[in-house]
C-alpha cells in the first residue's frame, strides 16, 4: 500500500515512453499517439491575466483531453518540482484530444527558459508536422475595466496562418510590442516554416481574467471549428480567479523580470 492508500500501479504518474531533448528542454511522451488532421498544437502559458492558462485548461476540460506527455525544464530557476500523488511531474503538461494537442503550464516560464522553451515547442511542432501552432494569451489594456466584453486580436506568421486569421472577422494586432514566449514563437516561426497564430484578448495585466479567456476561446472555436462552450467558465469565473490567485502572483513576478509592462498595443514609432 502506498502512502496515499492506493495500490502500486493504480493511477500513478505515467512513465515516459519516449523523450526528446531540445537545447536542454525535455519533451516526454507517455504513450504512442497520433494527432488527427488538421492538427493543432495549442499553447497556454501563464502570462497576462492568465488568459492562456485559463483558456487551455478549459479546452482540456471541455474536450475531455487526456494527458499524453509533458515538458521538463531541468535547470529552471528557482529550482522547483511539481508533485502529484507524491511523485514529481513536469511543470508543463501535454493533453490530447483527436486533432488538438494542448500545452499547459502549471508554473510561469522562468526568464532563462523563454527562448529555449519557445524553440523547443517550434521544433517539436515541425517534427510532429502540426498544421498550425496556436498561442492563446491576453494583452493588458487600461480600458479593460470598462468593457464587459473584451476585444480580441490576432497576429500571425506563415501564409496559411495569415489566410486563416484574416477570415476570423476580428482586428489584427496592427502595431505594438509583444513580450514573452509568444513573441519568440511569432518572430521565429518563419525560420521553422511554421504556421502560427497568436490570439489575444484585452485583459487585466495582473488579475486573472476568465472573461478575457472566454473571448479568446470564442475566436479559437471559430478558427478550429471545435465547439468550446464557455458557459461554465463564465459561471465559475469568480471561483477560478480565487483558485488562480497564487499562480497569478508568481506570474506577475516573472512578467516583471521579463519587462512585460512594456507590452503595448499602439504604434511604437511616431512619425
Amino acid at each position, binding site marked *: 500500500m502506498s502512502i496515499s492508500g492506493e495500490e502500486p500501479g493504480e493511477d500513478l504518474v505515467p512513465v515516459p515512453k519516449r523523450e526528446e531533448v531540445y537545447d536542454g528542454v525535455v519533451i516526454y511522451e507517455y504513450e504512442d499517439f497520433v494527432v488527427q488532421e488538421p492538427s493543432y498544437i495549442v499553447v497556454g502559458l501563464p502570462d497576462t491575466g492568465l488568459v492562456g492558462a485559463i483558456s487551455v485548461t478549459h479546452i482540456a476540460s471541455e474536450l475531455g483531453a487526456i494527458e499524453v506527455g509533458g515538458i521538463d525544464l531541468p535547470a529552471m530557476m528557482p529550482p522547483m518540482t511539481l508533485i502529484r500523488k507524491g511523485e514529481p511531474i513536469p511543470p508543463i503538461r501535454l493533453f490530447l484530444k483527436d486533432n488538438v494537442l494542448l500545452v499547459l503550464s502549471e508554473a510561469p516560464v522562468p526568464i532563462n527558459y523563454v527562448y529555449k522553451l519557445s524553440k523547443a515547442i517550434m521544433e517539436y511542432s515541425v517534427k510532429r508536422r502540426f498544421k498550425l501552432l496556436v498561442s492563446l494569451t491576453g494583452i493588458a489594456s487600461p480600458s479593460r*475595466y470598462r468593457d464587459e466584453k473584451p476585444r480580441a486580436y490576432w497576429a500571425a506568421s506563415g501564409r496559411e496562418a495569415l489566410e486563416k486569421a484574416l477570415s476570423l472577422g476580428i482586428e489584427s494586432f496592427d502595431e505594438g510590442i509583444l513580450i514573452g514566449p509568444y513573441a519568440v514563437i511569432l518572430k521565429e516561426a518563419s525560420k521553422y516554416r511554421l504556421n502560427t497564430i497568436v490570439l489575444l484578448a484585452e485583459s487585466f*495585466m495582473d488579475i486573472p481574467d476568465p472573461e478575457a479567456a472566454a473571448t479568446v476561446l470564442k475566436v479559437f472555436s471559430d478558427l478550429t471549428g471545435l465547439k468550446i462552450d464557455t458557459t461554465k467558465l463564465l459561471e465559475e469565473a469568480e471561483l477560478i480567479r480565487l483558485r488562480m*490567485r*497564487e499562480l497569478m502572483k508568481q506570474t506577475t513576478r516573472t512578467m516583471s523580470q521579463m519587462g512585460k509592462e512594456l507590452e503595448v498595443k499602439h504604434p511604437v514609432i511616431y512619425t
Partner: protein
Amino acid sequence: MDEEIRRLINLMYRRLWELRKELEDVYEYSFSRITSPYTRGPIEPLHSIYEFPDEYVIIVDIPVADSSSITVQVSGDYLEIKARMIVREAIESMLHAEYRREEALYVKRILLPPDADAFSMRYRVSGGRLIINIPKKAGL
C-alpha cells in the same frame, strides 16, 4: 519661474512615491513568501492601478466577496480595503452532496499616489472586482 519650481516639486514627490511603493512591494514580496499560502488569516487581494490624465483607477480583485461587507477607507497615505469572503464548496459523496462553508477576510492597503484626491473617490463592485475611481488633485 514659480511654475517651474512647482513642476520640480511635483516630480520630486512623484519619485518619492515611486520609491516608497517599490520598497513596499519588496517588503510585501518577502513577507508573502513566509505567510502565504500556507497560513490562515486575512487574504491579500490582487490589484492593479491605472493612471489616466484626470484620475486613477484601482481594481481590487475580491472574488466571491460579500458586497455588503466591503469597506474602503482612507488612512493617512493609504487606502484600506476590507471585505468578507464566503465560499461554499460542494463536497459530493456517493450518497449525498453536502456543503462546507468557509469564511475569510480580504484586507488590502494601497499606497496612494501623492496627487490622488482620495476624499473624492467613488467605488463600485462589478463581477467580484472592486473598481475605485480617484480624481487627481487640481493644480498638481
